[in-house]
């Protein structure tokens, strides 16, 4: 037998992993309590993030709906009721979401026909104008029209307004954006600017409001995460004291400190992963359900952004893992520093 003292073998992670899994399975009751703490903490975080996203979405949706109604009102104020009328549309470049929905609103408002003419718009806009509208030529824009609408992100429609408006019923040109150039040098045309310009005070007020909300939410999130960390830390400490004898025994049998530390970190990580996955799912579902019950479900569905929610979910899971690791630092070091004899003396 080799009697020289050597260094103890470092064990692969899988050994600690097996011990940890077994430990969690055997101490299921306590593990579940820890897990519930993490699930609740992360569910709270996720629910706040989801609620923020939904509230913002709902706000945007409500604003858009109000804006569309206002644009329609502006148009009608100039042309009179549009039911059964014909409208000319000049599309310059790509139409925005708002413009598309405005056209939809006009279709719903029983506009009889559109004289649609597209300028410089790319192929991705082929599905637009809506299916029942035939394209017409540049000369036919104004035929029998109550108004000619300019939409799209291009600035200057190259239209000879004088010629175009000659066959029109009413000489009204409605510009959906402030960048659109109004027709020049044609007499008797009334121009309606549909886009609303925000006043500078309004803009700064909105920004300040957003900052305040951001701060308040941030504060709540920080507090809730702190509570979660302390909860996990407490549970892990309990797990350490519960295992005083076990740790001491393992050290007597030749376990190195890192092996003990590894066990507690791994346990915490596993709990963190499981807890935060469950928590973020639960938090998101719960919030969506509550919002659907409070607001109208279709409003929630149309303002739901799955990409953003998935991002928040990932953020929550990462946060949960980080919390679990941070919370395990103290208990794991506490356990690994224990002298084997001390661990054996305690009668727990």
């Amino acid at each position, binding site marked *: 037998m080799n009697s020289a003292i050597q260094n*103890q073998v470092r064990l692969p992670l899988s050994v600690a992993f097996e011990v940890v899994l077994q430990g969690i399975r055997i101490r299921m009751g306590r593990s579940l309590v820890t897990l519930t703490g993490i699930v609740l903490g992360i569910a709270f975080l996720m629910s706040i993030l989801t609620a923020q996203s939904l509230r913002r979405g709902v706000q945007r949706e409500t604003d858009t709906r109000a804006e569309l109604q206002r644009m329609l009102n502006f148009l009608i104020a100039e042309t009179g009721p549009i039911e059964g009328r014909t409208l000319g549309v000049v599309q310059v470049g790509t139409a925005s979401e708002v413009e598309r929905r405005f056209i939809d609103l006009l279709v719903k408002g029983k506009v009889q026909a559109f004289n649609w003419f597209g300028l410089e718009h790319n192929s991705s806009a082929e599905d637009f104008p809506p299916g029942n509208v035939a394209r017409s030529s540049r000369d036919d824009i104004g035929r029998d029209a109550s108004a000619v609408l300019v939409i799209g992100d291009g600035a200057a429609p190259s239209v000879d307004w004088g010629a175009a408006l000659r066959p029109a019923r009413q000489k009204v040109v409605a510009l959906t954006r402030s960048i659109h150039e109004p027709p020049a040098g044609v007499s008797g045309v009334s121009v309606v600017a549909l886009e609303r310009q925000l006043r500078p005070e309004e803009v700064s007020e909105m920004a300040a409001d957003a900052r305040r909300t951001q701060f308040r939410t941030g504060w709540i999130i920080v507090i809730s995460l702190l509570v979660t960390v302390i909860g996990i830390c407490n549970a892990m400490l309990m797990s350490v004291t519960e295992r005083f004898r076990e740790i001491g025994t393992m050290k007597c049998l030749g376990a190195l400190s890192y092996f003990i530390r590894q066990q507690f970190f791994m346990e915490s990580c596993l709990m963190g992963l499981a807890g935060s996955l469950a928590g973020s799912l639960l938090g998101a579902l719960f919030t969506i359900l509550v919002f659907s019950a409070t607001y109208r479900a279709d409003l929630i569905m149309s303002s739901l952004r799955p990409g953003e929610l998935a991002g928040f979910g990932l953020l929550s899971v990462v946060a949960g893992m980080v919390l679990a690791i941070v919370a395990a630092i103290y208990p794991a070091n506490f356990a690994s520093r224990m002298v084997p004899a001390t661990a054996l003396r305690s009668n727990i």
Partner: protein
Amino acid sequence: MTVDRNKFEALFAQGRKQQRRCIIRGVDITKIYRMGANETHALRGATLDIYAGEYLSIMGPSGSGKSTLFNMIGGLGKPSSGRVYIDQVDIAQLDANELAWLRCRKVGYIFQSFNLIQVMTCIENVTLPMSFAGLNSEEAREKAMYILTLVGLDHRPLHKPAELSGGQQQRCAIARALANSPEIILADEPTANLDSRTGEEMIELLATLRDQLGVTIISATHDLKMLKRSDRIMWIEDGQICKITTPDEMKIQINEIR
């Protein structure tokens, strides 16, 4: 690899045939525990030699420093002053890594309250120190089964400690102590939590192991039956070793008292 008797016994100490090899030497060991301002002198200069292959019992009233001496010579704690040599190596010179190696391979521990790991089965408890020593699980299982047969527990390897009787748990603990073929087995009151018949069986088992495998057995005990089987008995009182006797001398003393 199949484990048979020859192979297994070959794993144990080779120095059996040597004359009176000193396996543990303690020189003037003191240990002071500090609790705030209080100082407790648990050991006040204990000097002792323990020889390979002997069966040594340590006797003493509670609070005499028995357990502390035990921890010191087992490499579980470091003395405040003095030296402990295990197999000629001063354990104060070892770092944590080497101490773990020593605890894993050189010493087997048996505890009063068994200290089996409750979440593991009997055989897993026995294979645990082997995996700490780097044995792969296949070899470890085979060796563990052999040791369990040796201690008479081969019929319930897959039971959890809670499902075993006290005697069976202590058998499992003895098997675990033997896992890495140590030269020394330290038993801290191994019979205290057992009824007298089971205790006697344990003592027989330890004595048989000593005879078969040549391991050095050091036990702290109050059990007179255990004393009878010992080669030497060390009496410790108030942190000092007051005398070392043989069982025969002790019998005379008891007769004198009565």
